[in-house]
């Protein structure tokens, strides 16, 4: 009988062991000529682009780089690790982050040095679009240096599916877009539009908001006296309801939803321009044949942007090394080296267009004279708290399909940013 209970005990213990995990921590390093660069770029073009920068940096200067990239979870693992290091006052020489309010808590916590003087000294104010610097500034100071820019408002489509549905050209207005979605639904077996995990709906929402409110109206949403209760927002949310009503929701992250378009299973997908690299490099699809792209309807001429940037943390052991690194990433040479590999465009307006082809060539052309609006989902316009609250409201909308409740949620989210 006793032996029986021992078995129960052993099984119980096994359960407890299984339920607990353990994790290890990293260590610190000596200063000197070492520059530690922290990022979540551990694969594909991102990693290759970063490595190209590092190689050039080590050749041009006598610093060595420690590449402290943390893999996984589109940056969430890296964020957790980074926060722990900042908290412990053991920052890397520079870390990667999106431009704008995503850095807000780090700025308020006093983790970041302002780089306004660096912009002046390096003449960046002359070569970076004025709106870019304005929209990523906090109280008149800028805290990070952009290396590359992505675009959020891109409508990807499958030309063959559009043809089958009798749509002559990709839609330019929201009205045409909704008509096109209906045509695809009625005329073909393909899904009119696809969504992936919840954040892809947030991504769609920022596009719909920009389309309805225009660049100025959209930008005003992120100011202190923003009016989320306006009839324009109501109209945008009605559009959002209608468009997302046509959506087929795929199981995976954004990739699966985007892939449906190039595979011919769907007509449209709204996703940032990192999808181009995924289509061409990973899926081996042909630009113009398997997929096409236009600016999201009613947003032509506006670049709903996000940017990868590098920072100067307070208390970096080797801040001269950081400055050298920032000089490289903000230089024309550095940006023209990094961006064609990563699949983004340079933030500088004086880049060499010869180095970019396919989608990037088109994007670069659009960038040079576009109005700029900051993506909220990708960190430019909304603080992390507001973004999280918006995401929660969008998540509830996906369940209850109630645009009034969504608008209330958005108003609420703006109150405590």
């Amino acid at each position, binding site marked *: 009988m006793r032996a029986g209970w021992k078995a129960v005990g052993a099984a119980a213990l096994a359960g407890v062991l299984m339920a607990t995990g353990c994790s290890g921590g990293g260590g610190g390093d000596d200063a000197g000529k070492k520059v530690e660069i922290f990022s979540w770029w551990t694969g594909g073009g991102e990693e290759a682009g970063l490595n190209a920068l590092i190689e050039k940096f080590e050749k041009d200067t006598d610093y060595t780089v420690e590449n402290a990239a943390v893999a996984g979870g589109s940056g*969430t693992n890296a964020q957790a690790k980074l926060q722990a290091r900042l908290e412990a006052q053991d920052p890397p020489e520079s870390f990667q982050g999106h431009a704008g309010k995503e850095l807000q808590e780090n700025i308020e916590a006093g983790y970041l040095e302002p780089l306004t003087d660096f912009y002046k000294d390096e003449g960046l104010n002359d070569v970076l679009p004025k709106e870019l610097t304005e929209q990523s500034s906090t109280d008149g100071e800028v805290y990070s240096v952009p290396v590359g820019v992505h675009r959020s408002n891109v409508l990807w489509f499958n030309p063959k599916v559009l043809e089958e549905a009798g749509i002559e050209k990709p839609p330019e207005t929201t009205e045409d877009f909704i008509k096109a979605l209906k045509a695809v639904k009625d005329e073909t077996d393909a899904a009119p539009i696809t969504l992936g995990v919840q954040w892809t709906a947030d991504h769609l929402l920022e596009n719909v908001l920009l389309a309805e409110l225009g660049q100025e109206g959209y930008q005003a949403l992120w100011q202190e006296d923003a009016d989320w209760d306006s009839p324009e927002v109501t109209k945008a949310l009605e559009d959002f309801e209608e468009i997302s009503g046509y959506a087929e*929701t795929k199981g995976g992250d954004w990739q699966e939803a985007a892939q449906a378009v190039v595979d011919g299973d769907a007509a449209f997908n709204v996703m940032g321009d990192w999808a181009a690299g995924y289509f061409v490099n990973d899926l081996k699809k042909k630009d113009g044949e398997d997929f096409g792209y236009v600016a999201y309807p009613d947003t032509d001429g506006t670049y709903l942007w996000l940017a990868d940037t590098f920072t100067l943390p307070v208390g970096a052991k080797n801040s001269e090394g950081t400055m050298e690194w920032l000089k490289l990433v903000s230089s024309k040479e550095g940006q023209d080296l990094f961006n064609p590999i990563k699949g983004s465009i340079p933030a500088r307006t004086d880049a060499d267009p010869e180095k970019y082809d396919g989608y990037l060539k088109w994007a670069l052309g659009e960038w040079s004279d576009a109005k700029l609006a900051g993506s909220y989902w990708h960190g430019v316009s909304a603080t992390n708290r507001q973004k999280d609250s918006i995401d929660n409201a969008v998540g509830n909308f996906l369940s209850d399909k109630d645009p009034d409740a969504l608008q209330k949620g958005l108003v609420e989210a703006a109150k405590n940013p």
Partner: protein
Amino acid sequence: MRKARDWLPGLLLVLPSIILIGIFVYGLIGWNFQLSLTDKHLPGPKPGEFVGLDNYVALWELKRWTDSVWNLVVFTVVFLGGAMLLGFVLALLLDKPIRGEMTFRTVYLFPMAVSFIATGIVWRWLMASDSAAGLNGLFGAVGLGALVDGQTWWRDPETGMVAMALPAIWQLAGYVMALFLAGFRGVSEDLREAGRVDGATEWQVYRHVVLPQLRPVLMVAIVIMGHMSLKVFDLIVAVAGNSTVAEVPAVYMWKMVFDVRDPAFGASIASHLLLAVAVLVIPYLVWNMRNERDSS
């Protein structure tokens, strides 16, 4: 008074673990509670001011929090009920000497060796909207396709959390089976024989002889499964990513701490989780200690 030679070596032996557990378990629990009572809503070196239970009150006023608690309740009830029932039935079947018992036991226990992340990713595919594969494909193949209508199972606002419990049941039913099987085997064969001699049917033997002696097993199973369920995080994230419809308190806590970067608010959610687990575990420990005292 006893000589130091009697107790000192023993104390020295356990002292390192007492100190480490004291700091890293109880010390950090204390620190978490302290943090949850402050207004430290930003990262950084600046300490927060003491605000009493403000964060706790604020939490219960949020629909998001009550939604996530409700999700967890549904998950826990379905998971506990399903795993216990299935595990019990499996144990019952294997209790009879049958051929290949070892094989069955191993097969049923195997899922437990898989991490929740792997389980979650596989079940995300199984429960996906794709009507040609996974569970939807299965329903379609037997002519019940209309019942599921190409839906992603866990996304349903009403029954999503019930679907979410399926992978957890799949994973842990075998473990419950092992617990119950050990329990069955712990009941002396003499007692069963005595019952049979008195004319009890097999069912009555289980009902009146075996089951009453399984209370400890039942307690162990409920406590272990229950505390795993309350803390569930990895399975949810692996299946649903960051989705509001499947948000549970542990996911909410993680988002508050690492996405929103609000340490105090995250700590108050963590405190709720700890208290919920304590409500489950402490009565068990008390009961266990009393039993051990009685039997010694």
